[in-house]
């Protein structure tokens, strides 16, 4: 690759943990849907436990992770989001940045919130016969657990809506703005505009610590909040 003055330098935008969480969710969310549709509830629960672990990891990584993964870095106020929307609508020059833009940050938060809600509801849900149940359903009564199951179905549609919006936005960046978002989410590397510093990366030991903590918590919840 020629690195001339006309080509902005390629820099690490998304660290490996952030990318792994993203693509693992891309695999596990459809897998969860498919196993539920085909009455494979053991696999459905297992998939949910992995998603729970990924979500806990992502929340931790949003606090101790690399700059582009941190909530403090990408969660902007409504005014910044609105300015971004105005700039898009008027086709004005978008402010130079790397990582999530002010609107995309809210999209990420909304998807994370929907996933957290969806996994939490699944933990308490049962089917009408009481045969299939989430690992925490014995802490609630039959009617509450059925309510959780009904809400588990509704939140799934909310999640699908948010994912559809996400895909539309990525497609729009790709084709209308000629801005490749998919490549950097795979390789981690992308064009950083001139004058914008590459995101600061977090040391690997923090990812390892967050992984151990999130795996332990997911296991504990999957085990019905029991240690043995």
């Amino acid at each position: 690759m020629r690195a001339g003055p006309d080509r902005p330098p390629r820099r690490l935008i998304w660290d490996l943990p952030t990318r792994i969480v993203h693509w693992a969710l891309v695999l596990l969310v459809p897998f969860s849907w498919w196993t539920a549709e085909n009455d494979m509830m053991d696999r459905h629960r297992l998939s949910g436990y992995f998603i729970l672990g990924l979500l806990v990891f992502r929340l931790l990584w949003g606090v101790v992770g690399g700059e582009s993964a941190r909530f403090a870095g990408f969660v902007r106020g409504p005014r910044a989001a609105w300015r971004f929307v105005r700039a898009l609508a008027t086709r004005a020059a978008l402010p130079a940045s790397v990582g999530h833009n002010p609107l995309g940050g809210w999209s990420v938060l909304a998807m994370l919130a929907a996933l957290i809600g969806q996994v939490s509801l699944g933990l308490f849900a049962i089917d009408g016969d009481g045969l299939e149940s989430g690992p925490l359903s014995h802490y609630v009564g039959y009617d509450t657990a059925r309510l959780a199951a009904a809400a588990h179905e509704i939140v799934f549609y909310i999640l699908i809506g948010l994912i559809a919006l996400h895909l539309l936005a990525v497609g729009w960046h790709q084709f209308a703005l000629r801005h490749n978002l998919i490549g950097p989410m795979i390789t981690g590397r992308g064009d950083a505009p001139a004058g914008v510093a590459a995101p600061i990366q977090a040391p690997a030991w923090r990812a390892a610590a967050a992984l151990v903590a999130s795996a332990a918590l997911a296991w504990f919840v999957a085990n019905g909040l029991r240690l043995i």
Partner: protein
Amino acid sequence: MRAIHLLGFLLLAGAAPLAAAVADQIKARQANFKQLGRDYKALGDEIKRGSPNPGIVKARAAAVAAAASRIPRWFPPGSGPEAGVKTAAKAEIWRRVPDFKAKAAGLRAEAGKMARLAGGGDRDAMAAQLKAVGARCKACHTDYREED
């Protein structure tokens, strides 16, 4: 002409309570299965606890066993989808009565074992038996119940 009208009236007058009776049968069946689900869940929840309350375990296991032995009676002829009332019961139930009854008997046997185990304190055995009962429930749902 008048006789035909009279006949039609009599038929309608006779059919209306009949339809109501079938609707009641279906509603009662649904309520019975819901209660069975409640009892099964309560039984499982209690077994999952660190120290199950033997009174609760016994009562719920007995309720499950009693319901299991009554299931064939919850499906009188005519209470299938042809009744025009919303029901997940498939018409196959009444086309394959011997198989349906054999499956119900299988559930009754496992639920009876569960009720007998409920008197003892062997939690692992109870948990295993609960799964065996659940498998018998599912055997019928797979063949004879519409997916929701």
